[in-house]
């Protein structure tokens, strides 16, 4: 569906994807969200809103027409190194009652992520639905960057599992990052599903996070949502997002990754006057395989 096509039905969920200079990564991410890739997610069940944050050669909706997505591509003006304002714009455009913020367009989805997240969100009136973040590679991409890991190496890894024909095998070639385990204090998720009412209540992302890549903005909204009265964290077991190499601000920062991490910490502390600390409650676990809470 092109950006100009009138929309007559309301999708069950809107996914707002942010990209910047992701000519290689974004097509794979959008493929991973498409009906041909996602299980139990027929055409029209979700809308995907891509907000390009000022790329020199921005993506066009017509380039992805073959994917069968209800897709809109919006070009945000260049000049803002933080994606937060662009992301909030996308959240405002979303039509569905359930909205997912996908702050990094270089992250592919596992094949049951969308349907599991939608099903999990139905289990509570104020759900905070989260899936763990992985890096493609047998170590974190911060570590791999120091060893020369690059896009070609990533392509070989993907070829080794026959991706995209066997998308569930992404777990075999990837590494969980940023305290994503079920017993760990979760810090963030790249696929954050909440109701429209909740996004409105929290005011979206805090636009004072002006660091490149948004800094701790994604942690901040996730932690604020989990701490808000009456909300329920629901972690999805068996699904994840998988970060591709793309020269990103944090995950691919290499030697400067520590400096970037400290800068993120400083900005968060200046704004919140407390350190970034993961969610203490383990929340509920929704098993994607069984379609039920554990």
């Amino acid at each position, binding site marked *: 569906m092109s950006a100009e096509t009138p929309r007559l039905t309301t999708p069950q969920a809107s996914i707002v994807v942010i990209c910047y200079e992701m000519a290689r990564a974004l097509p794979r991410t959008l493929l991973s969200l498409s009906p041909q890739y996602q299980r139990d997610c027929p055409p029209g069940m979700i809308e995907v809103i891509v907000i390009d944050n000022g790329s020199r050669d921005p993506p066009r909706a017509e380039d992805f027409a073959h994917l069968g997505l209800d897709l809109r591509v919006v070009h945000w003006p260049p000049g803002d190194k933080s994606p937060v304002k662009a992301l909030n714009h996308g959240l405002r455009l979303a039509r569905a009652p359930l909205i997912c913020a996908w702050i990094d367009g270089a992250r592919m989805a596992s094949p049951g992520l969308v349907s599991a997240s939608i099903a999990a969100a139905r289990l509570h009136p104020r759900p905070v639905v989260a899936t763990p973040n992985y890096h493609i590679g047998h170590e974190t991409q911060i570590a791999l960057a120091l060893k020369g890991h690059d896009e070609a190496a990533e392509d070989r890894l993907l070829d080794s599992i026959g991706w995209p024909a066997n998308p569930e095998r992404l777990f075999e070639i990837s590494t969980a990052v940023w*305290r994503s385990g079920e017993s760990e204090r979760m810090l963030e998720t790249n696929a954050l599903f909440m109701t429209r009412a909740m996004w409105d209540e929290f005011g979206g992302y805090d636009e004072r996070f002006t660091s490149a890549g948004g800094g701790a903005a994604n942690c901040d909204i996730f932690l604020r949502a989990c701490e808000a009265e009456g909300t329920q964290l629901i972690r999805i077991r068996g699904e994840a997002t998988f970060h591709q190499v793309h020269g990103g601000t944090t995950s691919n920062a290499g030697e400067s990754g520590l400096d970037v991490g400290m800068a993120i*910490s*400083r900005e968060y502390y200046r704004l919140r006057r407390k*350190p*970034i600390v993961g969610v203490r409650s383990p929340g509920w676990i929704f098993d994607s395989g069984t379609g039920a809470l554990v």
Partner: protein
Amino acid sequence: MTTPLTDAETLRAWLKSYISAVLDLEADTVSTAVPFDSYGLDSVEAVIMAGVMEEEFSIRIDPTMVFEDPSIDGLVKALQGAGLVR
């Protein structure tokens, strides 16, 4: 180089307090001599802690200092060596 504003004992006490608060530990159980990860402070949390230290004490830390001798005593010693702590 500017004159360090913070003395080693103040920083040591702050680090114990910080770690105990973040990890829900009694401050008395946080040893200054053992590695951070022995009481569950992982590398991500150590980086976050270093960023907060920078804000609290108005200093700039080489992040590798946090990992060369990853303990409270080791970090304080490294910061003293760099002239950031009295």
